[in-house]
């Protein structure tokens, strides 16, 4: 392994030589995390079918954006030898814009990465492992994985673990249906099968779905995966195979949530108030082989997402913040430091998994105008990028902290509107 990880392009991008299948599975395993098997199952259980729409809007949004932008980003990354996602922004907006983008990503992705550790720790807690021990254990594995293999190691293990995630979700849904007597939720309360309902109001849907729709462009850990397919054919296969994986996995996960809700209404499954505990409670009822398979898949999903994020963030820390573009050791030190920060955040268990994940993506929305500017515009300005990111970042964090939705418009939409307006206004002035 050491002989292979000679430079940063190899360590962070596996020398841009991955085939379509491995690229698609690493994209899927990076995207789909503990958020799905724990967060989304619980969200569907407690709020109904709106959770399916929310997750599928992400999927169609990703297909739409990748089909349009991935070939351009892929080609640009090769032509300009881009390794970290923030270098895309630096390319046309100057080095300070890229540096700022890296710092914002570091800040924003700590809650999302902590989601993965929280998911595994909650699961291990059901088996008697104290929550904080679970956090430390998961953090250790995340760091170790990234340190040993870099992108190549992570991509191949992602591919393997993606298979486990899909198989175990299918096995769990089948088991619930056959052994607990689920009946495809026919007869379930109407309000759970309809939108809008008490939770899924149009405003709530827009609030959660807006950052999700742009996830593929604003989240650096998935954006970086667009750089790695070996040719355009592999890139196209990555998009379609990822879409197929995502659709099947989303259907299975939401089906499970609705089935469990149906079973609760019929007195077969206990009523769960903390939605993040729905899956861990179910795992207390399943046979041992299934318990092991599903637990492994959740741990795999969480770790593949977390180590991919930590690897991407370490590339940004090394190249964009510290300016080290050759040696890998700085990136490796970044992996250790970032993992410790994530463990510290996760140990406080600040919110529900879904809300934490959406918060991260909302903060990252402030980078969207600069990314789109890089792709669409021939002439850009450095101030437009810097101030649009600062204004969007402040909007998202302040509105999230104070729970503000001025004029009834969700804060994710405000973040997008403000950062886009500032970008366009300053761009006009700079020209």
């Amino acid at each position, binding site marked *: 392994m050491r002989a292979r990880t000679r430079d940063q392009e190899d360590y962070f991008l596996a020398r841009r030589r991955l085939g379509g299948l491995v690229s698609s599975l690493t994209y899927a395993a990076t995207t789909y995390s503990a958020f799905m098997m724990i967060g989304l199952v619980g969200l569907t259980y407690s709020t109904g079918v709106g959770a*399916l729409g929310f997750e599928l*809007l992400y999927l*169609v949004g990703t297909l739409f954006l990748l089909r349009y932008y991935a070939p351009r980003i892929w080609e640009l990354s090769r*032509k300009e030898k881009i390794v970290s996602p923030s270098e895309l922004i630096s390319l046309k907006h100057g080095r300070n814009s890229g540096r700022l983008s890296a710092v914002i990503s570091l800040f924003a992705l700590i809650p999302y990465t902590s989601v993965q550790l929280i998911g595994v720790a909650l699961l291990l807690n059901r088996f008697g492992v104290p929550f904080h021990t679970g956090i430390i254990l998961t953090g250790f594995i995340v760091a170790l994985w990234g340190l040993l293999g870099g992108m190549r190691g992570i991509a191949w293990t992602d591919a393997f673990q993606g298979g486990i995630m899909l198989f175990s979700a299918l096995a769990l849904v089948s088991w619930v249906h056959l052994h607990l007597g689920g009946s495809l939720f026919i007869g379930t309360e109407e309000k759970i099968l*309809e939108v809008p309902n008490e939770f899924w109001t149009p405003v709530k849907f827009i609030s959660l779905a807006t950052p999700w729709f742009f996830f593929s462009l604003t989240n650096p850990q998935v954006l970086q995966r667009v750089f790695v397919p070996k040719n355009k054919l592999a890139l196209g296969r990555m998009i379609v195979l990822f*879409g197929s994986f995502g659709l099947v996995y989303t259907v299975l996960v939401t089906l499970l949530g609705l089935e469990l809700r149906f079973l609760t209404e019929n007195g077969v499954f206990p009523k769960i108030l903390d939605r993040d505990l729905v899956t861990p409670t179910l795992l207390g009822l399943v046979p041992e082989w299934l318990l092991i398979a599903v637990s492994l898949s959740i741990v795999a999903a969480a770790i593949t997402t977390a180590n991919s994020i930590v690897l991407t963030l370490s590339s940004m820390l090394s190249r964009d913040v510290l300016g080290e573009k050759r040696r890998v050791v700085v990136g490796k030190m970044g992996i250790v430091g970032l993992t410790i920060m994530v463990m510290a955040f996760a140990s406080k268990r600040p919110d529900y998994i879904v809300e934490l994940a959406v918060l991260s993506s909302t903060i990252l929305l402030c980078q969207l105008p600069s990314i789109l500017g890089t792709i669409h515009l021939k002439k850009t300005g450095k101030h437009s990028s810097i101030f649009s990111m600062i204004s969007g970042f402040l909007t998202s964090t302040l509105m999230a902290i104070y729970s503000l939705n001025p004029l009834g418009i969700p804060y994710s939409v405000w973040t997008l509107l403000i950062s886009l307006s500032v970008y366009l206004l300053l761009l006009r002035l700079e020209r």
Partner: protein
Amino acid sequence: MVSASDNFNSFSPGGSHGRWLRAIEGLIIVSLMSVPFIVRMKGIGTYFYWVGLALLYLLYSYLEVRRWED
């Protein structure tokens, strides 16, 4: 600020015309995903509507990506 990659924009498929078509496609797909919030569907109709729509869009994406091979 202009970079060496400015000519990158020159191969935008369909030029500005293609860009507008893409924007319209995005608006259509978002609007279609929002239909259950406007038209109340009974039973598991919403579930199958969303899954069916995503499946169709995946198929459409597959057909379009296949054109990259040409």
